[in-house]
């Protein structure tokens, strides 16, 4: 198993198609089909409800000769099934979402092409999660080494920790290019056609790609997935110069470390950057439009996170205010940020800082997609979709054979959500209905310590409970009681479980603490597979590990029903 996984990722030599499929199968499917001691029941019942009758409307398409050559060279990637299309599936955008969809499509035997107008990997790999994790890894160590008190409690002495900005920046950059080449070669190895250029939809099942203009190539596909992602959102009145007023795109290059930086927006992106900058010696001022920092997190977790991540650090904040105008530093003046009250719009003074990072969220990148050709109207730029990621047109009707995944549909702007949506779409187009449960998709913020969550927050759960008339219970465990966390001197942390005491259903889990981002998956998998607390609480966790925080969490829940699956017969191993 191990061997086959590494083979699938590293082999760049041409492999025959059947081999690829086998490898991909082993990689993608084996874990699902394993059964662990009867703890899991009825997982992923394949509802063979085929909602799509494959409409084989033929579209005449002018082919040009150069394209045929491309096809001929890549026979390993299946041949398009009947219908006269160039491809079974064309994915516009080679980000993490498109990549996930492409890999799964090949596994399903679809002839697949992926279009990329910029660089493979998209935002996540090049300008998002990946390089930011490199910065956070470096700055996290820096913070630890600077924390004399923390070091002393281990009995360690560290003299004058320092850092080389360029070195840190290079680490981020190198990581991005490494992951990018991994992604590229994994697709090449499976024979996915990587087509360069921006894609424009011309009509149903037909699109063109290229650098724009007449040199574009027109291709047809049975199904099309839009996975064009997003770009940093810059509100009106803010002038981004890329030097003193920057977005995450610039910040990830870490071209300089300002003494004092204002971060507009205190969501994931802002929070992670505050972690990086304060560790590298900057002071930070948050500007948040809502009344509370860290909106979107469970309030209790947010509060605790604020105590640990904001209050003791060199950070202050203005909440309930908009940055109505930001002028970059020039003519010997600092960056000037004009604030207005978020509700009354009254001026609330100015802030003068050395730099400003705009982390107000991300805007979908859907311009130039040719959506007007198929009568689709974006909503604030997002492509409207139903729960199966099928695109909805201006009349509220489904556009056949067109799907949109990832940031471009705005359902859940996370790389792994995009990938999951992509896989869901491929399942559908290969004849198996599939609806992704977004409540089972975990999210994480990689501060030190980390924050992670899956499912509903407490207010959301209570609202839902009120509407649907059930009871909600909360239980919490502290990292202070966890041996491994204490050994690491990282006892600060909390795990919170929101559940239904009547059925044992997990509604949400929120973790703040050491390695929270890695710990959440036990909960997210439980939600995805419909495992209930009364079952999962019998699962065994290695001691001493951080996973016992969750173990304890499940054990502390008071469920009114008994275990739904009594201990199964012992299995000889």
């Amino acid at each position, binding site marked *: 198993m191990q061997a086959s996984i590494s083979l699938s990722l590293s082999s760049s030599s041409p492999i025959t198609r059947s081999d690829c499929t086998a490898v991909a199968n082993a990689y993608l499917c084996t874990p699902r089909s394993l059964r662990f001691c009867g703890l899991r029941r009825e997982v992923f019942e394949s509802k063979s409800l085929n909602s799509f009758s494959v409409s084989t409307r033929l579209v005449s398409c002018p082919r040009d000769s150069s394209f045929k050559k491309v096809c001929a060279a890549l026979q390993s990637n299946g041949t398009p099934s009947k219908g006269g299309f160039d491809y079974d599936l064309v994915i516009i955008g080679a980000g993490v979402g498109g990549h996930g969809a492409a890999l799964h499509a090949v596994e399903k035997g679809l002839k697949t092409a992926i279009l990329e107008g910029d660089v493979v990997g998209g935002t996540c790999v090049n300008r998002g999660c990946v390089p930011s994790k490199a910065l956070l890894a470096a700055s996290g160590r820096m913070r630890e080494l600077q924390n*004399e008190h923390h070091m002393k409690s281990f009995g360690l002495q560290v003299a*004058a920790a*320092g850092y080389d900005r360029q070195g840190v920046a290079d680490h981020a950059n190198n990581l991005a290019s490494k992951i990018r080449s991994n992604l590229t070669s994994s697709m090449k190895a499976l024979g996915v056609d990587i087509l360069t250029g921006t894609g424009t939809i011309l009509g149903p099942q037909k699109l063109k790609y290229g650098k724009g203009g007449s040199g574009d190539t027109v291709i047809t596909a049975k199904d099309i997935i839009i996975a064009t992602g997003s770009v940093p959102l810059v509100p009106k009145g803010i002038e981004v110069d890329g030097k003193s007023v920057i977005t995450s795109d610039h910040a990830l290059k870490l071209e300089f470390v300002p003494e004092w930086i204002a971060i507009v927006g205190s969501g994931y992106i802002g929070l992670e950057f505050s972690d990086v900058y304060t560790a590298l010696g900057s*002071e930070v001022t948050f500007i948040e439009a809502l009344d509370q920092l860290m909106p979107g997190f469970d309030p209790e977790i947010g509060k605790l996170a604020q105590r640990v991540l904001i209050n003791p650090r*060199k950070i202050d904040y203005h909440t309930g205010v908009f940055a109505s105008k930001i002028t970059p530093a020039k003519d010997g003046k600092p960056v000037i940020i004009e604030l207005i009250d978020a509700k009354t719009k009254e001026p609330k003074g100015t802030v*003068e800082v050395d730099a400003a990072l705009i982390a107000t969220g991300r805007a979908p990148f859907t311009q130039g997609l040719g959506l007007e050709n198929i009568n689709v109207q974006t909503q604030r730029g997002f492509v409207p979709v139903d729960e199966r990621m099928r695109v909805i047109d201006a009349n509220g009707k489904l556009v056949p054979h067109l799907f949109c995944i990832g940031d471009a549909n705005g359902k859940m702007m996370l790389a792994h959500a995009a990938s999951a949506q992509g896989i869901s779409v491929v399942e559908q187009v290969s004849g198996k209905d599939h609806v992704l449960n977004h409540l089972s998709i975990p999210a994480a913020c990689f501060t030190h310590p980390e924050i992670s969550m899956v499912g509903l927050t407490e207010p959301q759960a209570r609202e839902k409970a009120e509407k649907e008339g059930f009871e909600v219970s909360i239980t919490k465990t502290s990292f202070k009681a966890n041996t491994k966390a204490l050994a690491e001197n990282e006892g600060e942390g909390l795990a919170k479980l929101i559940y239904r005491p009547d059925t044992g259903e997990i509604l949400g889990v929120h973790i703040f603490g050491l390695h929270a981002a890695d710990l959440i998956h036990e909960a997210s998998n439980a939600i995805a597979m419909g495992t209930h607390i009364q079952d999962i609480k019998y699962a065994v966790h290695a001691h001493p590990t951080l996973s*016992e925080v969750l173990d*304890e969490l499940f054990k502390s829940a008071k469920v009114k029903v008994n275990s739904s699956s009594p201990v199964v017969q012992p299995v000889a191993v």
Partner: protein
Amino acid sequence: MASLLQSRTPSLSFSSSLCSTPVIRPSAFLLKPRSGSRIPVVRAKIREIFMPALSSTMTEGKIVSWIKSEGDVLSKGESVVVVESDKADMDVETFYDGILAAIVVNEGETAPVGTAIGILAETEDEISEAKAKATSQSSSAPAPSAPNVEESSPAPKVDAPSPAVAAAPAPTSAPSTPGKVVATPYAKKLAKQHKVDIGKLVGTGPFGRITPEDVEKAAGITPAPKSNVAVPPAPAASAAPAAVPPKAPASFPEIPGSTVVPFTTMQAAVSKNMVESLSVPTFRVGYPIATDALDALYEKVKPKGVTMTALLAKAAAMALAQHPVVNTTCKDGKSFTYNSSINIAVAVAINGGLITPVLQDADKLDLYLLSQKWKELVEKARAKQLQPNEYNSGTFTLSNLGMFGVDRFDAILPPGQGAIMAVGASKPTVIADKDGFFSVKNKMLVNVTADHRIIYGADLAAFLQTFSKIIENPESLTM
């Protein structure tokens, strides 16, 4: 309730030994009968509920929520209010039976530790009186009414972090709004902590902003031991300057008026190396050397750009070539590491710092190349552009204080090297030769410090003898 501090005993028995965590139960400090010093007519039956100190570092608390509302009957031990401290939210319970007559500090508001946040009446009759008291308290500047603790402290004035939120009830002066005070986040935090009125400071930072250093200066601190706990332990700026001294020294009595200047990175590195050197058993051997011939040679080659440093380095390198053991390093205390090349590091003082640019392969380069190389290194050192391998690859160090008239001194062996040579000034000295004739010759004293684990007295003596022969017959240097 106070969930963060409560540790559940894990159900795995073998982990339980490590899991006891102290649990703080706030309550004792909560209610005390009013002393009556301020308001003349006070009945003991009306009690104030004070903001409790929930942790040793807590200076103020925020009311998260009132569990009871005005008019509720309270019994001893009941939770009344949830207070948020710098560490956690905690339920605070009452010590007395009574009626919650009035809430002075509302939900979401903040009050310093020790100020009244609510009024407790014993009977219904006293409610109106208690209410009157409450209104007088909340209307007429609540902060000064804080009876015992922190009277009229200017601390909360700076209410830095959240000017826009948290109606910041205590003092109503409003410097948090536009006013032309620009202070960095950490400066504001420090000001609050040390009760410095930030409005009165003159900023020295970029664009006239108030920096943490300005506040520290105004507060007259090198941080007090207590505050170390409150402040995040992250040290000051981490970027280029400000390095943390390597070992915590014993505390010395403080002499008033002294200033503390943190080490620069270079100084911190020197300090670290010096302390490390204490672990090496060293000894010293001195040797007098006549320099007339060297001086004569120096006069000759000086116009060609040769410096005394180059001459000495070359001489040392040539002597080392004959005595490789003096060029060794003891890395693990168990073995000799024979260095393949002879790299002479030369100590150079650079404004407030010390660095040792290295003349690599000094035995192989000729005197003129060596001099040229040296010139480049010194320029780079001055511009702080030395690459690491240009200052840390030395195998033997030369330190010359002769130009200052120092006649002899004792050098500390830098870690990672076997020996260091300290060169004193060359001075005319009366010498008696073996035939008993007196003469006056220039003479300098060199003193070598070496690691006795690898270099013994005889080794050094032999090395010095060779060195002195080279210096006394310096023609070989130019070859």
